[in-house]
């Protein structure tokens, strides 16, 4: 057991050490970012510039930073959610160069020059994207945590069908895939909703796609 005194000492030590390490990070010259030296006290960083929701953002990041953490922790775009952080739940789904991906399973520094769209870039409360509007109309959520990922995924799914990307349930590979509930369910399987709003989510997407529910 630690005595309060020891705790005070170690707490101060941590604070001093913490301040020192922060200072070190900011003083690391940019040129060392890709040098192949073994990791020293301060972790390697690298510079990256990409466009987020139409604005170019330049960052210098610990190379380990996922695109998700860059968006949330560095750019404070907290609409994109961290669920499992392992690509299983889809809460972190964003659209990069027109394609939906799991932002948790990709390094921010690998996205140099790319165009990233998050839920904040699709629409605003005053001017919602049609998919956001439809999720509200059809009550496509309960707690709302998975919703930004669901909406980004849904927007991209409709583009994928339009582009002729086949799915597991596409009957005829020679024909263009159709917007059906079966197709949408299959294509949305990478987005988990623990509240179980699935049927309303599909209603929202079919509404936007102009399909009779």
């Amino acid at each position, binding site marked *: 057991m630690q005595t309060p005194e020891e705790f005070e000492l170690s707490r101060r030590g941590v604070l001093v050490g913490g301040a020192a390490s922060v200072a070190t990070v900011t003083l690391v010259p940019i040129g060392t970012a890709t040098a192949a030296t*073994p990791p020293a006290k301060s972790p390697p960083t690298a510079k990256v510039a990409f466009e987020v929701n139409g604005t170019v953002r330049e960052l210098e990041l610990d190379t380990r930073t996922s695109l998700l953490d860059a968006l949330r922790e560095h750019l404070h775009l907290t609409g994109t959610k961290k669920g499992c952080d392992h690509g299983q739940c889809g809460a972190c789904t964003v659209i990069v160069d027109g394609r939906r991906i799991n932002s948790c399973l990709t390094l921010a520094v*690998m996205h140099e020059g790319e165009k990233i769209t998050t839920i904040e870039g699709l629409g605003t409360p005053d001017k919602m994207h049609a998919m956001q509007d439809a999720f509200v109309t059809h009550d496509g959520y309960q707690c709302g945590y998975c919703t930004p990922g669901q909406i980004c995924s849904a927007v991209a799914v409709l583009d994928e069908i339009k582009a002729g990307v086949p799915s*597991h349930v*596409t009957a005829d590979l020679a024909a263009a895939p159709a917007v059906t509930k079966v197709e949408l369910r299959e294509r949305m399987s990478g987005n988990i909703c623990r509240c179980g709003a699935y049927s309303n989510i599909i209603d929202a997407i079919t509404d936007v796609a102009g399909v009779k529910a």
Partner: protein
Amino acid sequence: MKSFTYERVDSSAAATAAFARTPGARFIAGGTNLLDLMKLEIETPQHLIDVSRLALDKIEATPEGGLRIGAMVRNTDLASDARVRRDYGLLTRALVAGASGQLRNKATTAGNLLQRTRCPYFYDTNQPCNKRQPGSGCAAIGGFNRLHAVVGASDACIATHPSDMAVAMRALDAAIETVDAAGKARAIPIADFYRAPAKTPHLETVLAPGELITAVTLPKPVGGTHIYHKVRDRASYAFALIAVGAIVQRDGTGRVALGGVGYKPWRVEAAEAALPRGAKPVADGLLAGAKTTHENAYKLPLVERALAGVLAQAKG
């Protein structure tokens, strides 16, 4: 995650050279499996060489009438290619049966082949695993193992290779083209690509350190009816319990490769001669010498019944 240095390269030669001069380096492309494992510190590269922008993202016709698929072609693009959908339907079917739409948008052809052969104990760092820590033992043998291998396994490892794409490529007789640091290129038949676990399950392929996959080639199309039947615990976004990839000709002959049963896509050419006689003799041949656990013996009849369903579907 352990820290690492990072560089992006723009040619295969630069990639293999970077590997040669940097200890503890790994190539990264889509990263969907590697980063997942790095977060758990199961993979701990000291240096990442980003090969995702190499100009290996084309699907081209070969002089032999087949296709050369660049290593960096995304799974979504490969599944969507008109030639693949028309002539290699099995490949499209297998690709879209795997992972999720988000992952397929990121995952590459080479990365799909190189995803780790794995099981839940490989991911659980509190458990022994000969693949994660050679010599530590196997928690799956005697543990929860209904998902595990029934053929080709060893006393050291009973994990299965999870790729659906690789099952189709095995049935299609794909070859894997590589280049090494000396600039030497070779083509490895997919039948010879994966190493049996034996006593060294941490070594999964025949690739030398730093050898880079540049393309996968498919021979000219063989026609027939292409069917990929994946049996899993839920309808979408789950690994195969077993999978049957088949190409069946009008005369009843054909090819079959299995997923979810071993450390590699499982094909036994000699067993295929029995295809016109139905599923049982083929399944018997494919699974000869199978060794089951207390939890995965169901896979043997499941393979036969899934194959019977596939053959019935092929007849139309």
